[in-house]
């Protein structure tokens, strides 16, 4: 009985997320006015900015989990760290692609080495390494500790990457477009941020369950199953 209630609540949450997502997409694509300078192209922002923000949020969650794990080891923390690293990878990959598409009509090139976008792109490669490490270590406890260390190393690099790209680029050109923002645009952006946040939560919960189930399967093997990978100490 309880299981079925939970199941229904989950389905309702997913449907609600989809509804808010659809409404937010409508505000961004139809309802909001075109930008004074960038015209309709600016509508990419309503997807690009939330995607990148959710990537950074995932990275923050990953960092917190990594620190917490080193102080207090728990499979749940490890599973959430794995989940958040993967969502960071997904949201970051799509987010930077959108940024590049947006850059083409506005800057004239796909990639203008914008410091923020470049930082996110570097972080993407770093989290790809993090996920590869998780895949290439078979002992779950070592994997958890090592990936926690790796997650911390990646996270503390963020400000240094940002400043290095900024200074590196400032030797070539400076780009700044201070503009007043239409209140309708703010409204649409807020809804889109909410929508993508909810999508992130749904993804995180689903991925967290996958990771946790995998951890429990790895750690509680009653007898060595045939074909199970032996951990070499």
């Amino acid at each position, binding site marked *: 009985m309880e299981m079925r209630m939970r199941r229904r609540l989950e389905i309702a949450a997913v449907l609600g997320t989809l509804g808010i997502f659809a409404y937010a997409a409508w505000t961004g694509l139809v309802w909001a006015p075109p930008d004074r300078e960038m015209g*309709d192209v600016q509508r*990419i922002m309503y997807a690009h900015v939330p995607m990148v923000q959710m990537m950074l949020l995932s990275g923050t969650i990953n960092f917190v989990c990594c620190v917490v794990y080193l102080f207090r080891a728990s499979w749940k923390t490890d599973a959430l760290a794995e989940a958040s690293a993967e969502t960071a990878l997904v949201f970051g990959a*799509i987010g930077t692609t959108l940024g590049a598409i947006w850059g083409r009509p*506005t800057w004239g090139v796909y990639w203008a080495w914008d410091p923020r976008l470049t930082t996110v792109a570097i972080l993407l490669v770093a989290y790809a390494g993090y996920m590869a490490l998780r895949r290439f270590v078979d002992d779950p406890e070592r994997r958890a500790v090592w990936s926690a260390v790796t997650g911390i190393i990646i996270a503390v690099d963020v400000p240094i990457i940002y400043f290095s790209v900024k200074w590196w680029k400032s030797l070539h050109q400076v780009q700044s477009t201070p503009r007043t923002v239409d209140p309708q645009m703010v409204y649409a952006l807020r809804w889109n941020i909410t929508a993508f946040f909810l999508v992130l939560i749904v993804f995180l919960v689903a991925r967290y369950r*996958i990771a946790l189930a995998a951890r429990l399967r790895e750690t509680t093997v009653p007898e060595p199953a045939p074909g199970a990978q032996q951990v070499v100490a």
Partner: protein
Amino acid sequence: MMNALHSVLAAVGEGRIQGGWEYVKAAYAICWTGLALYAVSLWARRPREEPK
């Protein structure tokens, strides 16, 4: 003089990027397809039996 100013302002108005919907369409298509594919991959990887 005023005519010249008007023409300059008009030119600035034209400075707005016209059209560009193909970029918007491509961006949203990539975004939605990407998220949908990830959702499908999560569904495919879902834990089969409840962990005890």
